[in-house]
């Protein structure tokens, strides 16, 4: 049967929640194993001393991108059925800035603060509390910000469509960008990394 399995009815809504839970546990496990439970390691990327966040995230993006492309090419995945969140340019830029400020200040993003809390870190709990409070506040104030929230809609925006490039060429360019990024990251780490004792703490 072709993927996405849920869209093609391989399992129902109840089973999909179990699948989501398993994927979520897997996601959290690998974030923790990558060292993302520590705010120090996460914040280190802003000082170029430890760029593992950049490397892990870009690796995930490239793996998922190549997987989606080649599975679609082999006919095992119907790409048109894969959910792509709609783009609302200006509100998402503002959201990205809020996200970035929160990340720099607290040292966690939403996923990693859950990982930190799950591993018993107090700052992770504080961050999680702040995130849930923010979600509740946003929900309560939604009617006031809805106009802005839905402004500058771009629909299902993807890079090949925006750049008017063939899909294969876009894939190639992003892989190239990732490999170059990894090389630069390694170089930066070599240049800025402190002694091994500090980095390992």
């Amino acid at each position, binding site marked *: 049967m072709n993927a996405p399995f849920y869209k093609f009815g391989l399992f129902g809504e109840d089973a999909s929640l179990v699948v989501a839970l398993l994927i979520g546990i897997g996601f959290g496990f690998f974030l923790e194993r990558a060292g993302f439970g520590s705010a120090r390691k996460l914040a280190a990327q802003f000082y170029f001393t430890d760029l593992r966040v950049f490397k892990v995230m870009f690796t995930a993006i*490239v*793996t998922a991108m*190549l997987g989606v*492309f*080649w599975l*679609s*090419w082999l*006919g095992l995945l*119907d*790409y*048109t059925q894969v959910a792509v969140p709609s783009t609302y340019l200006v509100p998402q830029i503002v959201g990205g800035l809020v996200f970035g400020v929160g990340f720099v200040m607290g040292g966690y993003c939403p996923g990693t603060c859950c990982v930190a809390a799950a591993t018993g870190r107090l700052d992770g709990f504080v961050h999680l509390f702040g995130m849930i409070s923010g979600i509740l506040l946003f929900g309560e104030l939604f009617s006031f910000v809805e106009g802005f929230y839905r402004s500058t809609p771009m629909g299902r925006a993807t890079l090949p469509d925006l750049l008017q490039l*063939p*899909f*294969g*060429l876009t*894939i*190639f360019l*992003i*892989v*190239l960008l*990732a*490999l170059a990024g*990894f090389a630069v990251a390694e170089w930066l780490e070599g240049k800025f990394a402190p002694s091994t004792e500090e980095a390992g703490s």
Partner: protein
Amino acid sequence: MIRQLTSLSLNKWLALAAGGLGVLALFAGSPFQGHRITIDLKDLARTIESEGDHVEADQFADWIMLKSRMRVIDLRDSLSFASYHIPTAQLLSMEELLEERRPKEEMLVLYSEGGIHAAQAWILLKAKGLANVYTLKGGLNAWKEEILFPVLSETASPEERVLFAKRKALSEYFGRESPPVRRDTTATPAKPRPVPPAKVVLEREKTRDGC
């Protein structure tokens, strides 16, 4: 040390694999299995507005008589097709029409009972990049009214009489039947006599050879 070397080589091996798949993606073509299409919406809108999407029954009849190089596609069900169809027409379902491989320049005229189905198929074929696709305006209903069973009111203008004379000739050609003349448009309209299907099928066989 050996461990570090192993992990380093694995990283490089994975980077190499990603790079290789990225390079292959350049030559792999579209991964969308024909589901993804690009439509020039403005071009479609212009074609529809300028009425370049359909053909009138009279002109269509001329095309058939002139044995123009075109394929006529009947999108109705097989029972309706068996009871009557326009000469030279070929029965195809919407799905068959979409899956069929054909040159992009091939000229197609689509018709259905009233025209809605044909118009929907027109948009789908245009989206697939076909240039010469037309629908029969008004569908088979218009064909029957205008070509097979034309009527003339007594108050008809000279132009309408000329048009009727032309349609009468077409009707004779396509139906081998002389169309009835309506004497009074308001009171008792002369009931058009239906064309026996057998005769039309014979006619179809004759004209089909030319296309």
